[in-house]
């Protein structure tokens, strides 16, 4: 679960990589929480282009992250999930609270 982050104005873009399952989730959770706590951030975009796999452990992690951000009036977005991850996000209903954005940030 490699990760890299980039801030543009008050939006943080987080590039995720590899597989996100229960084994990988706790490490990633800690990293994401740090970004979520940064005071200057208003929006967080999870760039999933480099992710190969995600199961319901990822759904739990993202729900937790969403609640944390919401408490601070920050919004979460998805970008570019693979077909496998898109299906997990659809079945889990996450799209109804976390929108998918279309444009890429270089």
């Amino acid at each position, binding site marked *: 679960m490699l990760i890299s982050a980039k801030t543009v104005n008050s939006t943080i873009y987080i590039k995720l990589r590899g*597989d996100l*399952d*229960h*084994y990988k*989730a706790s490490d990633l*959770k800690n990293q994401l929480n740090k970004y979520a706590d940064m005071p200057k951030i208003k929006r967080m975009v999870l760039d999933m282009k480099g992710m190969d*796999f995600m*199961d*319901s*452990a990822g*759904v*739990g*992690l993202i*729900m*937790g992250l969403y609640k944390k951000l919401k408490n601070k009036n920050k919004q979460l977005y998805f970008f570019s999930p693979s*077909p*496998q991850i898109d*299906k*997990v996000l659809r*079945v*889990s209903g996450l799209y109804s609270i976390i929108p998918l954005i279309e444009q890429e940030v270089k």
Partner: protein
Amino acid sequence: MNNNMSLKFDAIAENESFARSVVAAFCVSCDPTVEKINDIKTAVSEAVTNCIIHGYENMANGQILIEAELSDDLLKVTISDNGKGIPDVKEALTDFYTTSKESDERSGLGFTIMKSFMDSLDVQSELGGGTTVTMTKRLK
């Protein structure tokens, strides 16, 4: 093509990705689509994770058994533990139902995903005896 395999391995979180890639590799001989392979990996990952965190409650001394059978392009896969079992299977199958503490961030969607990613799902469980999940999927 008919083919059989069974895999036993330590119930540790490091083996979640190993387990799903073994079942995926086993199916390759039927030449399934990438989508079907991903569906199977996802469902296997859910079932194996459940054995580790629910069945054995993260104790490292359990073992998980996966049995898989291909016959005429139909995959049948069973995933079992000898862990604590499920008191009420019907309840456990409910969307968003989880017995994990909130801080563990389980979504309660494992069985939901198994059901929607595979063609069939059957769960047999005995309190104190363990849990066996059987799933099928047509590969062609």
